[in-house]
């Protein structure tokens, strides 16, 4: 089981691109995701999740020579459209219920994928996954690698959570394009080895900003950091259990 990482994209409020992340250039004031990867007419209705996913995916696709129409699309998110869902629940609790059909349709977990796939005219496989913080990256990678390794073509997986109204950390999105073979005119960034439960030690990669340690997809930021800095080894994903085992991914030279 393996695949090549051929593209990496990233969005946080302080580092709105992988380029900014690797340069260590934090924005002076927090930014909102631009959603520029979504055509303007569709962008107006795009949720924050869709906008930050679009920003990260657009950056990840550049070196691959692929467009948003010719990759599988996977969204892996701990809470999905949580803020929208809770607001929908609040509005539905009013007398009379006040939510709009548009808001309801946009509150489901896979809504962001539709907001990307429709304007991108992507008619391929798409899946919206959810898992616990310490499993979200491992399971998202397994689903993406599962598609690639069974001959489906390239997969773009975006790990993405918005800032939750309660009980959550800041927003972040990390997109990876995973390919069976090198793509585009640039060499692959790394090769992904097994995703499995194992003992792993800290590889010295981080999230650039201590506040991001509370982000539900913090392990995706660590993985992006390793990929962007050329760090290889067995990267821990999540916390160790009582036996010292945790989900890990092997990041290997391409």
């Amino acid at each position: 089981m393996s695949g090549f990482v051929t593209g990496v994209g990233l969005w946080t409020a302080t580092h709105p691109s992988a380029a900014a992340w690797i340069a260590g250039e934090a924005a002076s004031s927090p930014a909102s995701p631009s959603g520029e990867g979504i055509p303007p007419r569709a962008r107006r209705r795009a949720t924050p999740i869709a906008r930050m996913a679009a920003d990260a995916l657009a950056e990840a696709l550049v070196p691959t020579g692929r467009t948003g129409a010719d990759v599988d699309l996977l969204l892996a998110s701990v809470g999905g459209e949580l803020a929208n869902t809770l607001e929908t629940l609040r509005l539905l609790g009013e007398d009379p219920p006040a939510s709009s059909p548009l808001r309801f349709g946009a509150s489901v977990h896979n809504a962001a994928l539709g907001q990307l796939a429709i304007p991108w005219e992507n008619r391929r496989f798409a899946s919206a996954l959810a898992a616990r913080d310490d499993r979200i990256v491992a399971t998202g990678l397994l689903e993406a690698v599962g598609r690639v390794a069974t001959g489906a073509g390239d997969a773009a997986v975006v790990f993405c959570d918005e800032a939750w109204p309660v009980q959550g950390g800041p927003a972040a999105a990390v997109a990876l394009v995973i390919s069976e073979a090198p793509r585009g005119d640039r060499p692959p960034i790394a090769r992904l080895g097994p995703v499995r439960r194992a003992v792993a030690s800290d590889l010295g990669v981080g999230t650039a900003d201590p506040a991001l340690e509370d982000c539900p997809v913090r392990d995706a930021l660590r993985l992006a950091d390793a990929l962007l800095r050329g760090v290889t080894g067995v990267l821990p994903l999540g916390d160790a259990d009582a036996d010292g085992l945790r989900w890990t991914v092997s990041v290997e030279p391409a």
Partner: protein
Amino acid sequence: MRLPPLSITACALACALGDHEHDVRASLRAGRSGLVRWGADQGLPFSTWFGAIPDHDGGAQRPVPAFLRDHDSRQARIAHAALAPLQDAVDDAKARYGADRIAVVIGTTTGGMGDTETRVEALRAHGGFDDGWSLRRQHNAHATADGIAALLGVAGPVFVQSSACSSSAKVLGTAQRLVAIGVVDAAIVGGIDTACRYTLLGFHGLGILSEHRCRPLSAAREGINLGEAAALMVVERDDTPATPRAWMLGVGETSDAFHATQPRPDGSGLAAAIREGLAIGGMAADEVDLVNAHATGTPLNDAAECAALADVLPHHPPIVGTKGWTGHTLGAAGAVEAVLSVMALEDQWSPGTLTEGPPLAEGAGLDLPREPVAGPFECVVSTSAAFAGHNAAVVLGRG
């Protein structure tokens, strides 16, 4: 690419037709729909029909075991009650492969929504949940899978597909790939969605919730009836010594790229999913003996689905829709209909579509039986479609 099939070695089904598979079978044989009228008595500002799990043995009322109290919700209780028929097969699989070689992949859209919505006022008033309610452990979609994994003591990958109404059809594709690439040897898969105002009011707001009994595949169709269900399966690699109830041959998964809440009218996205599922399963279109269609009873879905089925299956196998019996169970629908398809393969018998009115014009030339259908059935296709245009087609073979 053709993939090895999965052996379906155990099933569990709780839905409006009964809280155990044998009750479901008895209701279908007796021609008893599980839909009941809901309205003001359930706090709704409108009237509709709903497929509620009957809860004969009080499972949905029983608290989950103490070690799982952190996950407690009505959805967790229903999952807990529904899991019992899987226990022997899970224990066998754990002994055969090891707990870390078994995945849990569940389709759901609601998670603990029904419980969260009773606490939204506290969130507004206090900026938090004042009774310890946890978004991570109880509300979020993944909480359902986390609870099932803990209950069954499995330690492989645990996650949720939350792709609206095709969620629990897609989990079968995920499991097939996880086995094919050697990550696991078995998986507990399925779907669970439970009653909540969020979906009832949301679909009513979209104008697609029917105040009458739903009329799938009928010219008189005017919308859906919702329902709740837990449908779960144990699937294993194809060389398992366990006796298969049926084979999961392949799942096709595509996107419409058309509209957030409406299907592509020509059905081409769903047609592509059916073709892909057949290719993965190594089946030819003319080998399909029965279709359990998504058949929600909305004007747009049923028309698009008939276009897809007419295109891909020109030999016109019988097409039945079962949502008139169960209601549309949303994130659980794909798994409910997969289990009903397993039962059809075993029994060589399928219920017809429970509906009213003349057949829909778009189904002209198709075989749309309303009376029960007898086999032979060697291959059944179950279709699902969803918000965001996410289609799935599950191809199942006789065990």
